[in-house]
């Protein structure tokens, strides 16, 4: 078992040229060749190396889920709805200030701040948008900085470029708030057979975010600019179904955009994704459907468990059991995503033996599709 090792040319051919790039940023920030620009990864020049971190770290190349699971959790890949799970609860930040700015219960903001305060990490790689709603990775070392990054904008962001960059420096203990594809890339960094370890040992905490898709920046920005001046946008939200809306908040009010209008901007790579719940994070956080102001939280690793327990003990977050029907619904949604992804992959390759980037035993595929 090992991750396939190839170079930048193959990354371009197998991922970028096929529009499979998730824009996670894992291949960016390490070299002068690959850069992220307005929602795209761009190869500025040809790197002629046959072995590159860019290829190995990419969540859309050689994704050996068993190897990653062994590396991150020490167990084989579960190949079920939610991956490795220790506990599922409902949580929210106790601080109302956090809750008002954040989406749902503010758990991510609260736990990230807490991890910083406790010294579990000395800096957090988060995602923040510029004045034109273009998101990118940013470094937070204080609670204020973490709070400034609260909220979602549903646009894919090359956040891991900031991890790659910052890990080169003096910072020793890094936490990352990651989308599922970003968590996959971080897991691949951990499992990489390359001599260059990319300072991955500095990665101490991964807080994963539930995600069903992310949008392309350029198209969304062009679309929105006709409706709302981009510079005035302060927050996005997608309220729970059946609203089917993207809400765009400015200081002067709210503009509702039918979700179907922005769906064409979903990155094609999201259609071949099988991870909705960030299965390779220490903890994964999403909404708690039907319960406003709360998050669903999946504790996956021991690191995650310790963090959540300490935060609860110190009164940073409060937790309560997630209702059974919510768990069932979460599993159903996650499984649906896996099935859609697998079907799309098989439709693309025309064979259930060739799963593009996925390395998954055929029994596991059958199990998920049945």
């Amino acid at each position: 078992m090992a991750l396939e090792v190839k170079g930048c040319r193959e990354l371009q051919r197998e991922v970028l040229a096929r529009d499979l790039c998730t824009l996670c940023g894992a291949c960016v920030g390490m070299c002068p060749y690959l850069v992220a620009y307005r929602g795209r990864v761009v190869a500025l020049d040809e790197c002629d190396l046959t072995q590159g971190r860019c290829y190995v770290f990419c969540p859309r190349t050689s994704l050996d889920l068993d190897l990653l699971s062994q590396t991150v959790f020490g167990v084989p890949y579960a190949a079920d709805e939610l991956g490795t799970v220790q506990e599922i609860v409902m949580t929210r930040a106790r601080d109302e200030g956090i809750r008002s700015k954040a989406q749902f219960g503010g758990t991510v903001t609260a736990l990230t701040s807490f991890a910083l305060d406790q010294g579990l990490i000395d800096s957090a790689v988060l995602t923040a948008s510029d004045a034109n709603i273009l998101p990118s990775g940013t470094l937070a070392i204080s609670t204020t900085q973490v709070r400034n990054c609260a909220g979602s904008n549903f646009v894919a962001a090359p956040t891991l470029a900031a991890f790659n960059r910052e890990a080169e420096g003096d910072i020793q203990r890094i936490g990352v708030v990651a989308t599922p594809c970003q968590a996959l890339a971080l897991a691949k960094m951990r499992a990489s057979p390359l001599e260059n370890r990319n300072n991955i040992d500095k990665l101490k905490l991964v807080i994963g975010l539930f995600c069903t898709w992310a949008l392309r920046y350029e198209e969304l920005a062009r679309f929105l600019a006709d409706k709302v001046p981009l510079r005035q946008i302060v927050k996005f939200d997608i309220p729970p179904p059946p609203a089917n809306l993207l809400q765009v908040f400015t200081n002067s009010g709210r503009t509702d955009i039918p979700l179907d209008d922005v769906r064409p901007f979903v990155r094609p790579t999201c259609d071949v994704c099988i991870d909705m719940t960030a299965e390779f994070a220490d903890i994964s956080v999403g909404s708690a459907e039907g319960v406003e102001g709360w998050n669903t939280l999946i504790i996956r690793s021991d690191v995650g468990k310790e963090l959540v327990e300490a935060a609860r003990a110190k009164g940073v977050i409060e937790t309560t059991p997630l209702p059974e029907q919510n768990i069932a619904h979460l599993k159903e949604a996650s499984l649906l995503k896996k099935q859609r992804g697998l079907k799309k992959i098989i439709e693309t390759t025309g064979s259930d033996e060739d799963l593009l980037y996925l390395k998954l035993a055929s029994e596991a595929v059958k199990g998920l599709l049945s």
Partner: protein
Amino acid sequence: MTSITAYESGASQLLMGNEAIARGALEAGLGFASAYPGNPSSEILGSLAEVASEMDIYVEWSVNEKVALEAAAAASFAGVRAIVAMKQNGLNVASDFLMNLNLTGTVGGLVLVVCDDPSGLSSTNEQDSRPAAKWAELPLLEPADSQEAKEMTKWAFELSEEIKDVCLIRSVTRVSHARGDVRLGELVPPNREARFAPTMLGQFTPLLVPIKHNFLLQKVNKAREIFESSPFNWYTGPEKPELLIVTCGSSWYYSLEAVKTLGLESSVGILKLGTTWPLPEKLVQQHLARTDKVLVVEEVDPFLEGNLKELVGDTFSALGPLTFYGKRSGHLPSFGELDPDRVMEAISSLLGRERVAVEPDYAKKAQALTGGLVQARMIGFCAGCPHRATLWSVKNALKLDGRGGFVTGDIGCYTLGLGPTGFFQLKTVQAMGSGTGLASGFGKLDKLGFDQPVLTVCGDSTFFHATIPALINGVYNQSNFTLIILDNSATAMTGFQPHPGTGASALGEPAPTVDIEALCGSLGVRVEVTDPFDLQDTTQKLLDLIQDDGGVRVLISRRKCALVRAKEEKPAYKVWVDSEKCRGENCGCARLCTRIFQCPGLVWDDETHTAKIDEVICSGCGVCADICPASAIIREAA
């Protein structure tokens, strides 16, 4: 370099062909000289400019060849002897005027020197200019060496005044740039008073075109008569040669060497022609009658060959059966330079002799002798060249923009941008100014579904030469492109001649400076100025311009030519590589600086597997420090 007036009459001086042409003009009482620089012609005006004050003549670098010819024609109209020099491409620019000037004729001797570049050693084509003489119905002289270049030039003024029309001289790189001993004649000051005084109604106008055309034909016939006894044509060889070589220019030397090397002096004759248009018919017929086999040796097109056949066609009954060999028969190539070897091959095959080839390991031996002295390096931008920096930013901006934008190129040092040291950015290269003309056209294709950003580049000298009309065309027709003016404050490729933007005249005296920025601004277009050495700022400005909402935009990328800086300034930085930090071949770099950026000042150390600075070559611009991903290239204020 010794001035072309350093020696007196009777002395011998080692002169470059172009210097000999200039000296010949001075011996003819030259009063006016103009040119636009272009290799291999540039030294003609350059050496005249050096002695302009001393000889009391007027010398100018004109903005282009057409204007140069017009300016020289004005001097001629006023009775002054004038010379105008250009390269083969320049003759195309001048030809619009030339094709009218031939009809109106001249007063003071007017000599147009065109220097061709077989094999395109420093050109974008290898156009043979000689058909222009036939086209324009004007006499043509072709010198073979420096001595002849001087004599022909001097005599060309007399011929021009005799027929009252322009006389063309055609040189090639190997004549213009070779040096040879020249026996000098008297320098003649330009003691003529300039006065414009037409002697006929409409003399210098197209009044009565057919009549003027008829005059022109008479002039060319007169030149033919004169050429019959020209000392520039002669025959060497046996009375009845087995093979007659008819040749001209530097090909004469190749023929001489070939015949001598093959030891065929007693069976092969050589008719060397210096007056190649119109052909002196009687003289040529007389020599053609010596044999039944003729080999024509010339560069590049079968011009002489065709004219000889034409002549034979007219006088077939007098000459009897003759077989011509040369380019049409495939014995010599119709492309590229000739050399003695190629001529030897043709003669050997025609006469069934064994060819004496050069030693098979000649090239290896030559390489062994020089290999240690010369570093293996491909043609590319100099160390510290601002064009490399600009094109680096262009490459990055276009990649980031991602809409398939491209650059139409133009003529100058930056033409090298079509190759690796310009990151293959130039996708078209044709004539002076045509990059902008093409951009203007591309920028109007939107109605046909075209959505690629269009960029074009031109140098500061090229801007004045031929870009301005194309730029105005783009503005007027509301095209959509970005013009990058690579302002290195020099006509660098041809040898740093001044131009209207440099503030200096051909004589090095102060001259008004034409402000490129203000000129573009007056067209109502967006104009930005950038320092190409600031890669980040230049890339950002380019992105802003490319992504601007249509129309014509101009970016002036301004930084002096590295070679000019080397003469005028101390290096800005001391640059060195911290080999501890250098990532070399590893992931994270893969030799970006020596493999992609490719400044010759950066070299790869095979032993340490790191980059290092060649201090002899490094110009100290410091740009490479900004491309190094590991900050391993250190620049310190020098």
